[in-house]
């Protein structure tokens, strides 16, 4: 019985896999597959060192705005970046999936997605720094909402700080969380209720 791709990957990544190694000594087919996996691995490493176009963010933004023929604000740029990430991820998935190589959690697609999401996050952080966007007067409810949002971002960051060197699927989802939360925080700090943000303050005691 041939080892699964997962077992080969364990071996490729240098972990202890005696049984798989023994099988490979006798099986040309599996040895070839392992070589292919190693090739994918080193190809990905090569990719990692190729810098993306320097002004990719500007280009995305221009395209997004061009499509709408008039400027409608940064959020479109952010949305476009995220959409592009989805497109790239889908494309890589498509071509990556068809050639017999296993789909790895970490791929050029997830790397692209994280790159785009972290660009969006960076733009949103810049908005948070812009003092002219901060509403000086806050209702106590808005202040409470800001605190709740900051707590959630802190927890997402806590996990990202540990996994920022990884580019797997869960990291993509965490970055998605971060972008959405920052977007809500930008709105909350400017004195608006964030997208979909409803604050009902219900005194539980008075309800009973």
């Amino acid at each position, binding site marked *: 019985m041939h080892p699964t791709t997962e077992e080969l990957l364990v071996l490729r990544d240098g972990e202890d896999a005696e049984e798989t190694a023994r099988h490979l000594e006798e099986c040309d087919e599996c040895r070839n597959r392992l070589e292919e996996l190693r090739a994918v691995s080193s190809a990905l490493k090569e990719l990692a060192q190729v810098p993306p176009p320097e002004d990719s963010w500007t280009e995305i933004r221009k395209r997004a705005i061009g499509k709408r023929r008039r400027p*409608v604000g940064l959020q479109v740029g952010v949305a476009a970046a995220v959409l592009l990430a*989805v497109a790239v991820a889908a494309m890589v998935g498509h071509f990556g999936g068809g050639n017999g190589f296993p789909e790895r959690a970490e791929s050029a697609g997830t790397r692209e997605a994280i790159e785009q999401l972290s660009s969006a996050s960076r733009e949103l952080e810049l908005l948070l720094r812009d003092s002219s966007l901060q509403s000086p007067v806050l209702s106590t409810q808005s202040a409470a*909402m800001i605190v709740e949002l900051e707590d959630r971002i802190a927890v997402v960051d806590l996990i990202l700080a540990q996994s920022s060197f990884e*580019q797997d699927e869960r990291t993509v989802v965490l970055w*998605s969380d971060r972008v959405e939360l920052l977007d809500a925080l930008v709105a909350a700090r400017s004195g608006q*209720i964030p*997208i979909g943000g*409803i604050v009902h303050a219900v005194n539980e*005691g008075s309800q009973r």
Partner: protein
Amino acid sequence: MKNILIGVFLILVAGALPAVAVSDGVQEDRTDSRNPHRELREAVAEIRSQYATGDRSFTAPRIAGMSSNMRLGIILGGSWHQAREEAAGAAIMAVTPGSPAEEAGLMAGDVVISFNGEPLFEQGLELPVASMKASQRLAELARDLENGDAVVLEYIRDGSTHQADLVAREIDFGPMLGKLPDHEDLAGLYRGQLAFAHPGDGKWFLPRTWLDMELVALNPGLGEYFGVDSGVLVVRGPDDGDTLALESGDVILGIGGRQVRSPEHAMRILRSYEPDEELTVEIIRHGRSETLTGTVPSVPIQFDFEFRDAGIPADH
């Protein structure tokens, strides 16, 4: 409010397309402003749908080992991120809002080159390798920090070198970490449930009269007027009162002896109280110092924070 919104919009637009005059069409765009938000949310939702079925084997012990790395509040990038930076060093991918790093002015995109005078990379290495090593070194150094440690980071922004002075501090995660005790909850992380409200969130034991107030942090001018360095001015107080009721024009200096810097800070301090605990609020009223004393209510006020499936209220 309208003026603020238009101002906000102009800045957004100016950031998006600096070279184009945008004075016309601002009014109509403003009413469209919910669409870009929706697009963003839809785009992120689409990414989620592609990735949320991935590895969910994230375990609690890993969370437990993490907190010490968060005393600065920076997320460092991997080699793919470093590659586009021009300088060798540890590139910051993100800065946690409310963290020491944010307070010290560090920003995503800054490249840290030294930690307390120690260079983070070796000369002679190629850039991606040098940057990777620098990030690893900075992560190690940050992990060893204790609360209150002073840290000086040198960093490069737009080609020039700057310095940031930080004081390491455990970030206040509020009640969030306590909500992640078991594997089930952590698995939910990948479906994005962590980020948004779920039952049990948003319980605040607030004095009832503190709802619906409007507060503003004192700026230097206001501080001089009231004769204090920092505090929070009550712009609009509650209609009726109990012993903890504030009035319009009061300045909150402290809560339970802790100095108050901003409305958010006031809310954070209040949240740290237990039900039925005694609460004192130090204020200035009509130019005189006073202390209000009362009890934290025994029933919470439930803030229902819901961030899903709704547009921005058109004119809020």
